[in-house]
């Protein structure tokens, strides 16, 4: 007869991880989903994965990168439509719904929204990890499970593509949208 058991110290370690990383994971989810239900699901499933694989979760700062990687997988499965609504986090769902506010479109940022939305998902993800999560190239590589070099190249190309869509360049502002095309 085999039994599931909580290894000694696992709960304390998980609880510390949960409390330290919860805000970052919630923000990660908020940035990539449209509904509060999805946010709750991503948070719940990500931490559940961490709990069930606590031995695989590295210590220190790398733990958050691991969680981002896990959240990314959870999201990918959601988008493939494989997931159902998590039974967990019922109350959290309610709380998130209450806090949800509609943000009014700001003409100054609308163009950036539109350009960002026009990028392909892989470009969006490296840019988001760099800008929103504020990760470095090697950290992004850890989250995505690829090499730092690959990330550097992807990031460079993604920034270029976004710049072109915005009619600007990566580094210096330009006066006319056509300039990017002429180069």
């Amino acid at each position, binding site marked *: 007869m085999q039994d599931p058991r909580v290894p000694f110290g696992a709960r304390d370690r998980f609880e510390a991880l949960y409390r330290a990383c919860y805000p970052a994971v919630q923000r990660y989810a908020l940035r990539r989903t449209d509904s509060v239900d999805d946010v709750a699901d991503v948070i*719940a499933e990500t931490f559940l994965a961490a709990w069930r694989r606590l031995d695989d979760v590295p210590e220190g700062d790398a733990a958050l990168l691991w969680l981002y990687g896990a959240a990314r997988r959870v999201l990918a499965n959601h988008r493939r439509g494989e997931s159902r609504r998590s039974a967990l986090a019922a109350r959290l769902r309610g709380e998130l719904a209450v806090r949800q506010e509609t943000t009014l479109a700001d003409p100054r940022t609308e163009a950036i929204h539109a350009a960002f939305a026009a990028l392909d998902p892989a470009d969006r993800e490296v840019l988001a990890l760099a800008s929103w999560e504020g990760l470095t190239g090697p950290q992004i590589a850890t989250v995505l499970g690829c090499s730092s070099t690959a990330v550097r190249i992807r990031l460079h190309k993604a920034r270029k593509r976004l710049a072109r869509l915005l009619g600007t360049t990566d580094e210096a502002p330009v006066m006319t949208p056509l300039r990017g095309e002429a180069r």
Partner: protein
Amino acid sequence: MNKIDRMLATIDPAADHDEPALSQGVEELLEEIVATPPVRRRASWLPGRRAAEPEHVHPSPATTAAAPRHGPSPLRRRLLAGVAVAGIAAAALVAVPLVSVSQSAAYAVVKKPDGTVQVTVREFRDSEGLEAKLKAEGILADVTFTDADEHCARGRFAGADLAYDPPSTKNMTDQERKEFDAPENWRSADAARPINRNTFVISPSYIRKGETLVLEFRPGNHPEMAWWLGTYLAKAGSPVAPCTLVDAESDEAMVKEMAGN
């Protein structure tokens, strides 16, 4: 941060949200998660992904966080694995040092506004008293406390779902497996589930008329293993036979395995 990154920062969807507070919902989720059976436990009859998983390395999150899968959602799959393991293993176990509290009762039974009944176990004694208290809340229960080195032999009753005597899933087709995984087949795990170290919640809505909730407790027999709780439902009309004690396995091997040794 370069210029493009700064521009993107102005459309950060999370920027308008305050630093998420550790609200009650957040606390509840924590308890819900740690109440699920942890890590890598998989009964031999559960088809596992273990073979594909490196054991003693730290693979990148991209490959480990949610391994490629087929069938139900990752969460469901995990939860069901947990449920199934709890079923066969007779153990929803929680690590808690057993502190004897002399003045108070061995357990506390509290009915919640949502109809669930919360049971806090302080001492492993007076099973009849617990049965009576549960009966007062309308729950027909059969409670057994055994010593750490023994447990009840199987075959005391006919299970109302698959938890008590689960079939082998070894040669199941996908369709059969899907049916096997149906929540209805693991109702007993919903009927009584631990929520923290010494408390479990009984949800009468998962118990049908005439069914008996069978609870088998035993203390762990290893210092790092506090206790086990087997939760089952006996079919309506299937009387629950008295517990025949047989030797329990040592918890040591399991504790070691759980610790990753």
